[in-house]
């Protein structure tokens, strides 16, 4: 295995082991997202809301707020004891550092995403069309694409705002406009799945999510060096 991959995987593993021992980001993100689902359900009278697009919108609003909260903690372990400086002083390529953090973030967002989806299903149901295994897998894939998109953008901007005092607020302000296409595509894909149980007839939105994820990850791999060595 190349040093690039070894470094990236070492960073991913380190982040996942740290999170397993701290149990902070995943429970916090899941709880926050679940609360948004509950609040939105109460506001819109759960059960009375039938339109798939509205239900999918509620789900993705909850995921968006929760994921932004989650990616805001990307470099939390590096802030402790100034470990970021230790990483930057090591020969790890900045792109490998980004990739390692990105992969960890995908896992750390997908896990609470599943919890949020479960709470949503409990309150709203996912529709009879999603009862098949294929539909459930498609929904999981859409969720994963969403987590990857948020992780791709979030890891980059978390690095950009790392040393700033108002980083949490700034991260949200910077990220939300860029997340609009992903949020829209995720919401529409979910609505299609809830209605038809398959994405075969309307592949535009999931395809947009794939392209979005690829573009942001590739761009971030290139520019991350300049972002963290500012």
């Amino acid at each position, binding site marked *: 295995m190349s*040093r690039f991959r*070894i*470094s990236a995987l*070492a*960073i991913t593993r*380190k982040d996942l*082991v*740290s999170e397993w*021992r*701290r149990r902070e980001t995943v429970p916090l993100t899941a709880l926050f997202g679940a609360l948004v689902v509950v609040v939105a359900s109460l506001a819109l009278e759960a059960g009375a809301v039938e339109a798939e697009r509205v239900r999918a919108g509620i789900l993705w609003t909850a995921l968006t707020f929760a994921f932004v909260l989650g990616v805001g903690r990307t470099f939390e*372990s590096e802030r*402790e*004891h*100034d*470990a970021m*400086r*230790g*990483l*930057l*002083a*090591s*020969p*790890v*390529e900045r792109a490998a550092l980004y990739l390692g953090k990105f992969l960890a973030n995908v896992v750390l967002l997908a896990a609470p995403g599943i919890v949020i989806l479960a709470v949503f299903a409990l309150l709203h149901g996912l529709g009879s069309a999603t009862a098949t295994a294929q539909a459930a897998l498609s929904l999981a894939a859409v969720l994963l694409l969403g987590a990857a998109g948020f992780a791709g953008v979030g890891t980059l901007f978390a690095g950009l705002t790392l040393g700033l005092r108002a980083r949490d607020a700034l991260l949200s302000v910077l990220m939300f406009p860029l997340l609009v296409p992903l949020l829209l595509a995720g919401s529409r894909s979910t609505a299609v799945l809830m209605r038809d149980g398959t994405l075969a007839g309307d592949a535009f939105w999931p395809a947009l999510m794939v392209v979005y994820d690829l573009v942001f990850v590739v761009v971030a791999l290139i520019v991350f*060096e300049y972002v963290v*060595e*500012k």
Partner: protein
Amino acid sequence: MTAALTLRGVSKYYGDACALHDVDLTVEEGVFLSLLGPNGAGKTTLLALAATVTRASEGNISVFGLDPGADGSEVRALLGLVSHESFAYGHLTALENLEFYAHLYGLRDGRERSLDLLDTLGLYPRRDDLVRTFSRGLQQRLAIARALLHNPRLLLLDEPFSGLDAHAAGTFSSLLSSCCREGRTVIMATHRLEEGLLLADTIALLDSGCVVFEGGAADLSHDSLEELYLARVGAGSHPAHLSDTRGRP
């Protein structure tokens, strides 16, 4: 002989604030340089630039003839950095921390090397304890182990003795002495003159982002260094031209 570190006309700005101004400095390979100066003099910034953690606003830096901008990873593989922070992860054990960094440095014998250093620095019995349970001094010992893990040719030390008890400070001094005997280059930033003079071949004084003195340490006693320090730094000396102020007092 190749210079371990060369800075030519290096300046570093953080917004409007100037942390380093037009610094010229050459550190030959195998030399122990003590970088002295008060808080805010620019010592940490100079080390951060040498460590390639941040980029210079102006000027050129070369490490063992390599350009950190173009050969960043190659340069960083030659460096070991100890700061007043440990760079350690609190939710990993001491051994896990060192093994993690060993992966980043591409060491094949990372585990053995980590265990050896933990033993040398008296941390072996605590190897499986989470670092967040460590005292400041124990964390500093771990930081030293991390910096020495890959046998760096250039050691950059920023107030490395802070937090160490007398025994650990003695062990670290011995380690530094053996590093010097092995021909490694050491640059140590400190505001404590005694520490700075103890092992140094060369002394550089920094004040307000400028090098105000650079010269050999062999003939300097603690008193003469203190006198020099007060004259160049304590009195607020801020020479415009480095060349006017270099050399022995």
